[in-house]
């Protein structure tokens, strides 16, 4: 035992003999179990369950009016699902800040198949997708993201054409 306490200069003092004992074991273990139980509590109700992803809700009056074969978003659905947030940020920068760079303000969006849209969340996106609770919120809640667009951008009310 003492051999191990040697280096090239000689031996150290012998290792002190301390009694090995787990003090207050039952309190610590009880505390640990309570702590783990509390941490696990939120997860327990969902153990083994699969939460199905939300269904896309497209039954708004404006979409229903469009013929079945013409029902397409400004970009392909898969692309929109992955990139709509980046597209909205680009629209925002182009509408609000493009003049800072000397470029004219850009408010028109041309889709790959040549259709033209006003770059506006309230007046273009929410025109078709007027069911914000079902279309936007449902999915945002599912993936636990909290976009703050709707703090300012209006989600309901009359249309721009009526207000003029």
């Amino acid at each position, binding site marked *: 035992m003492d051999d191990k306490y040697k280096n090239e200069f000689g031996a150290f003092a012998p290792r002190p003999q301390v009694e090995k004992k787990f003090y207050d074991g039952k309190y610590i273990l009880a505390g640990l179990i309570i702590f783990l139980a509390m941490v696990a509590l939120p997860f327990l109700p969902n153990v083994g369950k699969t939460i199905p992803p939300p269904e896309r809700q497209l039954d708004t009056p404006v979409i229903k009016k469009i013929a079945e074969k013409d029902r397409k978003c400004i970009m392909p659905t898969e692309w929109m699902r992955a990139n709509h947030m980046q597209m909205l940020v680009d629209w925002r920068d182009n*509408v609000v800040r493009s*003049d800072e760079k000397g470029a004219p303000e*850009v408010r*028109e*969006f*041309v889709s*790959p198949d040549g259709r033209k849209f006003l770059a506006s969340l309230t007046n273009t996106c929410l025109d078709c997708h007027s069911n914000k609770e079902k279309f936007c919120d449902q999915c945002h809640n599912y993936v636990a993201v909290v976009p703050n667009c709707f703090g300012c951008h*209006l989600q309901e009310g*009359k249309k721009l054409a009526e207000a003029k």
Partner: protein
Amino acid sequence: MGIDRREFIRISGLAALLGLGGKGAFELLRPGQVEAALKPEAGALSGKRWAMVVNMQKMDEATAQKCINACNRVHNVPDFKNPNDPKNKLDPEIANRYEVKWIWTEHYHNAFVEDQTNLPDKVKQMAFLLLCNHCDNPPCVRVCPTKATFRRDDGIVNMDMHRCIGCRFCMAGCPFGARSFNWRDPRPYIKDTYPGYPTREIGVVEKCTFCAERLAQGLAPACAEASGGTLIFGDLNDEKSQVRRMLQKYFSIRRKVHLGTNPQVYYIV
């Protein structure tokens, strides 16, 4: 057998050439973008130095009120004194303090603080219509730590509410009191929300934008449109514009010129 010096220099030179020309070569071979493109709206008004002329000879209280109402409507400016729901009623003193102003009237002595003894007494009793001066040398832009407020090439001092952190440096910087802070959610105090412009959130500063969003659609600012010729909006850089002709013809004053911000709202008195 290894590579000799001559061969090494030749290969690295070629590689460097390819590296420099690579992107250009790609663009030559595949011109244009496959992605969807954004374009400016057709018929947008463009100018080099937008300015406003307020013809105080024609101005009266009713016209001023018409301009204010038109602006407040199309920009969803809240009226904290008249909530939609009576339970949101504010203490009058608080409502006064929270007021959001884009365009408003003020007595001569409050609008033009420096003593202009040369002006007739009639002018000194007028109520002036005030708005953001869209200065050439805007102090609000200089102090903004996030570039949320910025000066566009056409002279408009615009706000990007997305970037405003609500520090209110710009309000301290602006010598014209043209900026207002949103002390609370404005939505319960907007009578008739207008879909063409967003509302604001608690914690951002806002001000007149010379109706940048209307100019992009080819429309004159809402106040100029509602004023029936009392407010004239136009490009100072254009010799034939009405603002230039009015300023040539009549004597005009501006607010607090001595501060050197070069305000671009002119008052014909």
